């Protein structure tokens, strides 16, 4: 199908983009890479009157990557981060997670911040933000604010961003050098939406497990002094806490079972 008619506003600065959202926000959608939004427009799941195209704003194209972590502007593509030469050194888990985000053709245009704002319950970038304890910066004409992953992603395809706000950047802390990590994703085919994706980071006696695709938003659990014998019980409790949902890809029961089985394998692999 084709998108319903809309106007395109192409701001020259972030300030102009914010002014535009402040005035037209109720009827506008922000487009950067458009790899989720364009599909929704084509299927007419979204019919905004205005698209605010921020993809050419140089101010939003910054990538800072160092010992403190990764900070990406809203127009930075998934491919740009994936191919960053320092990514394997500081946050290798993000590279692994990005390899599961769509395909090379969508990663070439899709943005990290766009994935976060789309807030698909099974998506990899919201899972990274939650598991690594990252933050999102939202700006509007009246100022800016920083939110943690759980403050930002409020539910299924829902975030705390108001229609007058623009997500200008996201920050992911680096992994400590001593940290061990693992990432597992179950999908029907490579590049499909994940049925369940899991990220695990272990450092100095604590084990953190992030799970997406089971509840409306990524869920993160942290355990200290984890005993191998306790893992099945803890994962079972986590699976029931998240509940799961039925859709065309899998049943809630199947998702809970993946948490128990793949979660156990992942944690054991990381701690090995």
């Amino acid at each position: 199908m084709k998108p319903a008619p809309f106007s395109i506003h192409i701001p020259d600065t972030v300030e102009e983009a914010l002014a535009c959202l402040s005035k037209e926000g109720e009827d506008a959608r922000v487009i950067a890479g458009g790899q989720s939004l364009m599909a929704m427009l084509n299927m007419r799941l979204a019919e905004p009157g205005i698209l605010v195209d921020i993809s050419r704003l140089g101010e939003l194209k910054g990538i800072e990557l160092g010992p403190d972590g990764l900070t990406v502007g809203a127009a930075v593509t998934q491919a740009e981060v994936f191919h960053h030469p320092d990514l394997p050194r500081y946050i290798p888990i993000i590279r692994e997670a990005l390899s599961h985000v769509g395909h090379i053709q969508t990663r070439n245009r899709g943005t990290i911040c766009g994935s976060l704002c789309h807030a698909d319950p099974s998506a990899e970038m919201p899972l990274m933000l939650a598991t690594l304890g990252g933050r999102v910066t939202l700006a509007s004409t009246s100022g800016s604010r920083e939110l943690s992953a759980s403050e930002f992603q409020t539910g299924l395809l829902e975030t705390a961003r108001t229609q007058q706000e623009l997500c200008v950047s996201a920050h992911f802390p680096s992994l400590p050098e001593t940290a061990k990590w693992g990432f597992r994703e179950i999908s029907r085919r490579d590049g499909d939406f994940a049925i369940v994706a899991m990220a695990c980071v272990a450092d100095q006696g604590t084990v953190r497990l992030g799970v997406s695709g089971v509840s409306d938003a990524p869920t993160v659990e942290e355990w200290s002094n984890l005993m191998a014998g306790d893992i099945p019980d803890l994962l079972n409790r986590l699976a029931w806490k998240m509940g799961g949902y039925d859709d065309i890809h899998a049943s809630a029961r199947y998702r809970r079972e993946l948490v128990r089985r793949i979660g156990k394998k992942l944690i054991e692999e990381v701690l090995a």
Partner: protein
Amino acid sequence: MKVLQQGQKYSVEFVLNGENVEGFAEPRMLLSDFLRHEIGATGTHVGCEHGVCGACTVLMDGKAVRSCLTLAHQVAGREIRTIEGLAKPNHDFGALQQSFHEHFALQCGYCTPGMLMTLSELLQTGKRYTEHEVRDALSGNICRCTGYREIVDAAMVVLGKEGKVAE
């Protein structure tokens, strides 16, 4: 700030296969439709129209992208390469096209422009690729005829470690 009003057509200038071209498009027009209906470059095929099948893949500034998930106005000033740009000046096949031909890597041919454009991104890097990397790149292109074996074989001849020297 530039504003493109809905329902009105605006000029889009860009480079298509090395030539400067201009067309007119409404804000909502997809790049895939723009290429086919306005520019007349019908080599780019349209399959699912929501970014899943890969038939409409083109190169935008050298990167493989879905033209059905890109708006016509987003290519203003950019360089687009399509299947029409792969043949040599004397209309001989390019290396990938020749290899597809030799390996029977197409049957109905509907997905082929997208397959070739995805592989073109790899070809232009001049690097050598493993079969796993080629399969990973092609995972974004769906073929319902061949079962992929011939496509991967054709690609490996051009892009693989043992392959011919890239163009």
